[in-house]
């Protein structure tokens, strides 16, 4: 059937099944390859996108739940000012290695920053605990996000 939703700011239509995964639709029907499949069971966070502003694992999201909603992928988010701050913090802290977890990690980071409140170490860690990174040992990611949460909260 035809599913209509908003993708990175544009109204889109796609012929698909209601049980199809959002992940496959964005990757294959819309050719947006920045969202990755890591585990396909909602455990690793590599496929995180925003659905109506909330972070979700797109591998666990059937198209049925996307009808009429707004989806933002890394391709959409990377056009924003906020993304640039995240990119800079990730670069400076060395929070990326093989990069496969990174777009998902960026989206999870924005999920935290959006809260707009000051976060404790534990808040940050719990907030990122749904994202597996096998390369970095998380320390650089943690530092980048801590710095961002401090700066963003101060700025807002």
């Amino acid at each position: 059937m035809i599913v209509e939703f908003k993708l990175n700011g544009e109204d889109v239509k796609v012929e698909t099944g209601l049980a199809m995964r959002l992940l496959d639709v964005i990757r294959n029907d819309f050719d947006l390859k920045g969202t990755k499949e890591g585990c396909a069971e909602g455990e690793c966070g590599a496929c995180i996108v925003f659905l109506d502003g909330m972070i979700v694992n797109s591998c666990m999201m059937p198209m049925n739940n996307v009808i009429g909603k707004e989806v933002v992928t890394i391709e959409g988010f990377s056009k924003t000012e906020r993304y640039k701050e995240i990119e800079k913090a990730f670069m400076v802290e060395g929070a990326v290695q093989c990069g496969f977890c990174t777009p998902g990690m960026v989206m999870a980071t924005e999920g935290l920053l959006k809260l707009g409140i000051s976060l404790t170490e534990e808040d940050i860690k719990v907030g990122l605990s749904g994202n597996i990174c096998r390369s970095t040992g998380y320390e650089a990611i943690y530092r980048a996000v801590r710095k961002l949460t401090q700066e963003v909260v101060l700025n807002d």
Partner: protein
Amino acid sequence: MKITDRINRVDGVEKINGTARYIEDIKFENLHYGRTLRSEISKGRIKCIKYPQLPENLWVIDANDTFINQVAMITTDMPIFADGYVNYKGEPIALIAGKDKNEIIRFMKNIEIEYEEEEGIFDFGSGDNIFSEQEYTKGDLETLEYDKVFEKSYSTGYQEQLYMEKQGLVGDFSDGRLIIYGSMQCPYYIKNALIHSTGLADHDIRVIQSETGGAFGGKEEYPSLLACQVAAASMKIGAPVRLIFDRREDIVFTTKRHPSKTLVKTYLKDHRIVGMEFDFGIDAGPYLGLSDVVLQRGILSLTGCYLIENLRVKGTTYKTNNIFTGAFRGFGAPQTLFALEQHMNQLANHLGYDPLEFRRPYFVKRGDISSTSGIYNEEIKLDEMADRLAEMAGYDKLKEEMGSYRGIGISFIPHGGGFTGDGEAEHIKSVVKLKKDTDKNIHILVSSVEMGQGAKTVLSKIVASVLDIEIDRIIYENPDTLLVPDSGPTVASRTTMVVGGLLYKAALRLKDSMESDVEIEIVENYKQPDYVKWDQENLRGNAYMSYSWSAVLAVVEVDPLTLEITCKDIYAVYDVGMPMDEKTFIGQVHGGIAQGLGYAMLEVMTTKDGLIEHNSFSSYTVPTIVDMPRMHTDWILNPYKEGPYGAKAAGELTLVGVAPAIASAVENAMDIEIKELPVTSENILKELLI
């Protein structure tokens, strides 16, 4: 620029914004998908395979479609497709390929295989089913005078690399030429395997690495198997064929770290170690692959940081019908050094010494005779590292604070950089090229891949620093065997030290011609340092050209009720010669600590009748951010003469020392002996009940 400058990764931005292209992201015209038909039994003869009527657009590719049905790794004992006989559950029998994934799956549901099943072998170490053996001795254990023997056995389990990007390759054969694209560590291993399996000429095969989302050894030899399969498929169909595993397949059927058993026997006289004996065995699975090489690195590391005068070391690989095991960061050393370091710890406790002070008198020094009777050529600063570690951690105070359910443990670890013995000169024969184009940009032409470890950043930085130019004038594309020489595989912590060393020399030669307007190409070939002497037959001489070192201290807490272990702190001091890029090096350190922590206490992986039971992210638990301890790390400077700017190996070292330190800390916390990895609440309970 200068080598000491602080820089950002050269490949960071496209990975952060999601535009980096991994194999699953790349489009191919007329792409066919492959899916693997696998054995459902562990051992036996295939009596017949009943395929349903084959639709026009589906293909079955099996042993008959290969030119030579062997995957050339170091050995050639593994078939590309099982041919009438299977040796493990999940062994590939055929590839089913077509353009419609659903049609492939429907077709595969109706395939019936009849087997004549045989009894599989799933245990190892009893002395039966030996694949290969290696032995060496030093001094004389026969006539040794001793007053006591201290003997313990240790074992370790599987570990899965769990790179975030699954295995994946595309084979594209057209007009008599084959191109392989994909996620890999060793483009030339794949190329050589294809020359062997396809019968195509060298110049008709090309291997191109795509962005690689982590590897950790898991994409060292295993992709050679997949390359042979997609090559056969593409040559049959005449269209590109893509094989990307799903996560369960990737966890269950690709190579793992070898399970091991180690017997350690120490001969003591007047409370001093006068001799040691080791018997190390690993489960290779049904094919030898790299296992004999893993065994070798394991046994050559066995005396660790200590000078042991009299020694007998034996290593054995065992053939089983379990999953095929292979390369994983550390390559045999995490197993043997866990055994050694636990043993040293237990010995210190047994004799009533402080574990740190007990180790010191045995620390090796420059000029000492190594376990393989070579001479340690370089400055070794273990005492200084021990001092630094004790100071950083506040060792004496920390010791006093420890009590029930809180403990500390330490480890001291060497890691030899590059291939064993004269392997770099005899087998690898690394070649690098540097090209200055007419725009005065510099192209690094090597087969070393970026897989997350930072090769592109570090090698570019070395070249830019020698030439004293900005790093953005360095161009280092993912290797394509058509364009780059064989600088060897991206393994064995050799990239910075060996390949970087060659690039350093090439850049020095190029430096004087930087002003010229013409294109210039510099080729540099590996030359073994003069002091390296190695007798591979008898495993005698300099087992490695240089060693890196780590000193690690772990602090753990155990929950009194649930016995759940939390690693609170890791203190670590490293000697990697000179780190080439601090941020990259620290990234390796933190990543290595995370994987070491997983190996130590989280990553439980068991099998039933040869099949891995922990087959998903939810059942195989690797560290998340909340599992990470506070990490306090430092390094000493100890430049290595033959390395670029004094660099030695770094990548693997950072993993190896973590598990023994954590295991010793649990011993300290619970007043028990840990002889098995991973350390879990169940293991602690078992020990408490003894």
